């Protein structure tokens, strides 16, 4: 039903979105690329000029960079593994005929709606705080020393906080997928004597493949940019122990006020994100509904 005029009209309708998104991405990216080859420090504005690859060299030679890269991957992979595995288990449990399933779903989904700074602040102050936190009180109750979560295990603590936020998302999507599985198929398998483990492995898991890949894709997009949780709790510390790549770039720009180096870091982050995106889109993009 597409005529020549409707084609033109549809181009005009799509154009604003495409142009705006292009400007939003391309202009800043081009500027970041430009700054990354420049000497540009807010604290010494009198000096400027081209410095070639110096900023990149500084970034790649900094031990903090490799730590930040490791931390970023550990955060993304850690949260993905925890949320997908627990998400499958919890979805299996809630999918059973359970009393009050509606209220149950409401309780389980709640953490997802808690904004990152609030989630981080709840855990930091009310639970992980070494004097006033609930965990410390429990430890004292057993006569043990309180664990210094954010001081001694900053990255693991942040992985825990972020997993708590994203577990509802994974659970909800896996649960939705599970509920579209026909019960006849499972009943037939049960009659034929398939054990619960085999039913899970050969019927439920294949059915969930698409949902799991979607969970991984969407979560990776959001997890690569995790910021508010770190900013609220550890500010990347102690030292650089919980600094991810985005947070390291943020620190270079805001604390060190070195725009050139931060820009080089930004370009490196874009390259890495593109590598991740390439594999994700190839592996998972075909599962999307286009």
């Amino acid at each position, binding site marked *: 039903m*597409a005529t020549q005029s409707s084609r033109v009209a549809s181009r005009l309708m799509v154009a604003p979105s495409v142009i705006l998104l292009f400007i939003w991405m391309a202009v*800043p990216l081009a*500027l970041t690329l430009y700054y990354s080859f420049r000497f540009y420090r807010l604290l010494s504005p009198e000096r400027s000029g081209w410095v070639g690859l110096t900023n990149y060299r500084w970034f790649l030679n900094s031990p903090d960079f490799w730590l930040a890269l490791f931390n970023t991957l550990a955060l993304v992979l850690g949260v993905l593994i925890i949320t997908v595995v627990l998400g499958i288990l919890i979805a299996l449990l809630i999918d059973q005929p359970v009393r009050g399933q509606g209220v149950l779903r409401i309780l389980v989904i709640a953490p997802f709606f*808690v904004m990152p700074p609030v989630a981080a602040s709840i855990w930091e102050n009310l639970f992980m705080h070494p004097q006033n936190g609930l965990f410390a009180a429990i430890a004292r109750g057993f006569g043990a020393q309180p664990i210094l979560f954010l001081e001694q295990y900053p990255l693991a603590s942040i992985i825990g906080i972020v997993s708590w936020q994203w577990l509802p998302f994974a659970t909800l999507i896996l649960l939705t997928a599970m509920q579209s599985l026909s019960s006849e198929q499972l009943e037939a398998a049960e009659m034929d004597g398939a054990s619960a483990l085999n039913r899970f492995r050969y019927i439920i898991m294949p059915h969930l493949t*698409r949902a799991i890949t979607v969970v991984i894709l969407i979560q990776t997009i959001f997890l690569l940019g995790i910021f508010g949780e770190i*900013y609220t709790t550890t500010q990347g510390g102690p030292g650089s122990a919980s600094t991810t790549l985005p947070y390291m770039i943020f620190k270079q720009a805001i604390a060190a006020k070195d725009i050139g180096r*931060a820009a080089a870091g930004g370009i490196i982050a874009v390259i890495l994100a593109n590598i991740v*995106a390439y594999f994700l889109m190839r592996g998972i993009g075909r599962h999307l*509904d286009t």
Partner: protein
Amino acid sequence: MARAQSPRRRMLTTIAAWSVALIIFFPVLWMILTSFKTESSAVASPPVLLAADWTLQNYVDVWARSDYPRFFWNSVVIAVGSTLVGLAIAIPAAWAMAFVPGKRTKDLLMWMLSTKMMPAVAVMIPLYLLFQQMGLIDTKTGLVVALMLMNLPIIVWMLYTYFKEIPGEILEAARMDGAGLWNEIVHVLTPMALPGIASTMLLNIILAWNEAFWTIVLTTTKAAPLSAFIASFSAPQGLFYAKLSAASAMAILPILILGWFSQKQLVRGLTFGAVK
């Protein structure tokens, strides 16, 4: 896949499922309980529950702080404003892609999704400087623009998946019956598209309300929404736990309620239609 089960097993799964759900919800519950305690009860050791001095004073105090209502209002304006502007731009685009798909439509959608993968920090400095030059730093307008653009790919995608389910034949039938373009849009398309637009709107308000990168980077005090306020709120040695909890509870409550209403659409929206 509800299947017949023995009552005993049913009871066990019910207990197990409720225990898990309560553990997941507990941090939110504990925060809400703390918000009704006095500051000294809030940090009492061992923690008190029944013996706490319950009070509403924290809510009164937080709201009476001259700036809290402003942070709250900023959140409302930014979340709703960026969503409405985003919808106005995205509806025509999603519409055209769903009803007049070209050879490049699929690539275009994928490109839009891929812009979401761009790390925000990579474009943070130029955007900050551009916003500074245009006088948009620490203004609600600036944040509406930033969050609108940030979420535009998601809005287009969601709308696209909803619009695509509207059968094209209905349009042709309406045209056969002599309906003009205006009637076609008002009487045929809008009623069919509204549910999709509404759930896109809800999800996007949630995402914008909870955004905590651009709100922190692009504001200082004047236009800061709740996410930036809570992120900068540090509780020195537990002095303000109860008030922090009250401020947090008010910050998440509107979204918690919106979210509970939209949880069905949420799955579909957040998975770009891949899981329904």
